């Protein structure tokens, strides 16, 4: 690892784990983190903020029966770590207790190649890319584009994870992200266009997805939205383009497949293992091992190696996403979905890159055969109630489908539906696959996720109309 800043003595980790289990406790782990961030933001055609920082800390957890005790500290000295461990020991009494811990050393089974480490890229290059995006957006329409906001951010996160089962992992995660938001106005009407990119990647992300091209796209959308008519309201057939991103699958089904929610009885999918929960055309996979995707990682935040997980296969429910705690409850092993926002949070079950696998139909043919309805070309944020399966998400770019052709742009559509119900109504699945990125919020923790789907036709969904498009890129659980 280049520019390594985090070093923790293994014997100190052993001491802290032993202290956490000193009064009992079945399991203990420690997560030590050094996170360095840089961000650049532009507004009003000026570089307004250049910010950077370092956040160092450690979280210690002890589990005794069904109880989790958690403590964290910014103090990575021996005293700091042991004090945090003693705090959790007080709350985790009884059980198996202290034992000798032998820490191994897991080496990564995957290589994520970072071409250009962000800490080796000059800040002038970062501000330059942001300014280029501003210029590209404004060039689209000098008059009607009123504001352009461009944000760039990179994160280098070094982690050391160790637990009382002997797991020891050192890893470095590098993520880069760009957000462009354009505001266009005409009279009293204001519309926005938003484009985001992000990856478990370095600065090379900006040559794969050029900020200036994203800005051009966002600006064109904002301007054309000014002239778009209102979206229709009511029930109608819906085609979701592959390029629309995967917010729908994330909301409509992903959250309901998280084992912590399932085990609490909070998921509509809870009792349905092996049952048909979607159309036979639907296979859903969560794969944290995809190179470069925003939700990718080599190890989850409990040190479990990442692996692809087939959740729904040809319409049948096959598996859930597990972290250590929910896996223990089910007497099985974790499949690498224990994640946390930072050392200040205990790990919970989370998605990584969730997608519906591609089918074999030509996307244009899907639109032709649908005949009429709504075509969703870009999705915005969404939300789900996992207990009922009800979800909603916004349509950032939607068109009417008329006579089997893409018709006029409409603004302000949102889609509401019920996860299991909608997935059963998928009639056609395309041979394309388009990814989206976002920050998923659950229990107050935000983690980076990716999602994707091919072009799909859905027999009928409720379209809520008459509003504008594309707010924030967040994805949030209720």
């Amino acid at each position, binding site marked *: 690892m280049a520019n390594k800043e985090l070093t923790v003595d293994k014997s100190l980790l052993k001491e802290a784990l032993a202290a956490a289990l000193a009064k009992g406790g079945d399991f203990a782990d420690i997560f030590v983190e050094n996170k360095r961030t840089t961000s650049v933001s532009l507004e009003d055609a000026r570089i307004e903020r250049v910010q950077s920082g*370092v956040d160092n800390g450690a979280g210690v957890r002890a589990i005794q029966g069904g109880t*989790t005790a*958690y403590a964290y500290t*910014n103090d990575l000295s021996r005293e700091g770590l042991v004090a945090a461990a003693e705090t959790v020991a007080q709350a985790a009494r009884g059980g198996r207790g202290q034992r000798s811990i032998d820490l191994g050393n897991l080496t990564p089974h995957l290589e994520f190649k970072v071409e250009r480490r962000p800490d080796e890229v000059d800040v002038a290059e970062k501000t330059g890319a942001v300014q280029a995006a501003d210029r590209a957006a404004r060039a689209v329409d000098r008059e009607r584009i009123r504001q352009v906001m461009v944000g760039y951010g990179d994160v280098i996160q070094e982690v050391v994870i160790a637990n009382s089962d002997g797991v020891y992992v050192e890893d470095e995660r590098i993520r880069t992200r760009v957000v462009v938001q354009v505001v266009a106005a005409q009279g009293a009407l204001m519309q926005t266009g938003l484009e985001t990119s992000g990856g478990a990647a370095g600065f090379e992300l900006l040559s794969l997805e050029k900020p200036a091209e994203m800005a051009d796209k966002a600006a064109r959308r904002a301007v054309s939205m000014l002239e778009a008519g209102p979206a229709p309201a009511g029930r109608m057939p819906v085609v979701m383009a592959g390029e629309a991103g995967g917010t729908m699958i994330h909301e409509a089904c992903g959250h309901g497949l998280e084992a912590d929610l399932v085990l609490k009885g909070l998921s509509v999918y809870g009792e349905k293992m092996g049952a048909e929960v979607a159309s036979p055309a639907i296979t859903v996979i969560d794969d944290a091992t995809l190179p470069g995707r925003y939700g990718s990682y080599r190890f989850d935040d409990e040190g479990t190696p990442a692996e692809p997980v087939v959740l729904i296969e040809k319409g049948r429910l096959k598996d859930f996403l597990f972290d250590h705690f929910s896996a223990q409850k089910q007497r099985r092993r974790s499949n690498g979905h224990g994640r946390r926002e930072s050392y200040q949070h205990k790990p919970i079950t989370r998605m990584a890159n969730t997608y519906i696998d591609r089918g074999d139909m030509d996307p244009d043919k899907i639109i032709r055969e649908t005949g009429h309805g709504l075509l969703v070309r870009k999705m915005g944020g969404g*939300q789900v109630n996992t207990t009922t399966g009800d979800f909603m998400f*916004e349509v950032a770019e939607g068109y009417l489908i008329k006579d089997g052709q893409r018709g006029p742009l409409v603004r302000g559509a949102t889609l509401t539906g019920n996860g299991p119900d909608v997935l059963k109504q998928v009639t056609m699945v395309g041979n394309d696959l388009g990814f989206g990125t976002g920050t998923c919020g659950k229990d107050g923790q935000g983690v980076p996720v990716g999602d994707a789907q091919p072009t799909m036709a859905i027999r009928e969904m*409720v379209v*809520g109309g008459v509003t504008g498009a594309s707010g924030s890129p967040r994805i949030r659980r209720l």
Partner: protein
Amino acid sequence: MKEEDNLLILAGVLDLVEAGAQGEAYLQRRRRLNIEVREGRVETLQQAGDHGLGLRVINDFRLGFAYTTDLSREGLARVAAQAHANAAAAAPDEYRRFPAPAPPVEGLFLYDDAVRQVPVAEKIDLALAMERAAREEDGRVSIIESSVYQDEEVEVAVANSGDLRQTYRSANFAAYVALVASADGDSQTGFALDQSLKYGDLKTREVGREAARRAVGQLGARPVQTREMVVLLDPYVTGGFLGLVAPALTGEAVLKGRSLFAGRVGRQVAAEHVTLVDDGTLTGGVSSAPVDDEGVPTSRTVLVEHGRLNGYMHNTYTAARLGGTSTGNGTRGSFKSTPETGVTNFYLEPGTADPAALMSDLAEGFLVTEVLGMHTANPISGDFSVGATGRLIRNGRLAEPVRGVAIAGNVMDLLLGIEAVANDLRFIGGIGAPTVRVKRMHLSGH
């Protein structure tokens, strides 16, 4: 940590600011307790502390910022070097400045030492009692997703190269319950929350009971036909919409051409019953403080008075740009961010009518009690389209529960369309709202 120790750290880092440049340092220390119980047992017990420092440097009219959790000599040297380097990469702006010292607001009760004095075991009992209260309220409560007690104490110190030095400490207490009620194969969720500056004021049992009532009340909910109806929004939902309005009332949004209120001071922007206030000095307000996060005294700002726009919320920078004075609304998410313009205690002033009186004359209407996807609403255009859950109103009374419908519109039209404001003002965190009645809205259903 003693207040003097915190100020000493700030003085140490301000000493590292280059000659000719100005600096401002902000230090925050937090201690947090989080207790989550389920089925009569502690599921998660979290006790933790953190601290960090954020440094702003203005050099040659350029602003740079950096933060660190490392308060050692090396850590402070690094944060100072980064802040200077970041300033060099930013555009110059003649309005960049730090506030001059001014006396803080006196007499606020912000620190209840119960945060330290009351033993954890007693707080666990409170969370357990809250869960029991939810179960006992109605036998159809089937799952407690979480029953949570939280408290937090915060020390803040801020100082700048001018002679500003401010420090204070505060504590706050919160409880919430999320649960599921089930009957006849249907499951519905319910949520309730209370937050307080005083341990003894926290209404834990009532939170449990309210969450239960909210879930049970929705059992058997179905969508309705697409139609137009008069809509009532309960305090939770009204508060959600106020969260959408608040950013547009900041000087920041006005400056950046993303406020629907820009250029409309003195004009009617809401119905006559609407008075919107931000008050950082509010007695009992969970966001009250003697100074904001730049060290400027907080204040009470009437933003919209009987529907007329009075002005905006400002921090030092937006006030300088727009030619006013800071309203004490320089707020930071944490030491990791710069002070932007944000709300303190932001609320819609209550009316005099009982919530029931707002529906008594309605042959038909819809009371919204929960929305799905409020965060997807667009704070710039004001457009929203959210999934809505609630109860039909028929002949002046609450009738059957409804779910799976969408309501859509623009938040400016919503403000202008408020027909009545009830007296049941309630704060959810820093945002307070009563029940309101809005003229006819479009409901998308079947």
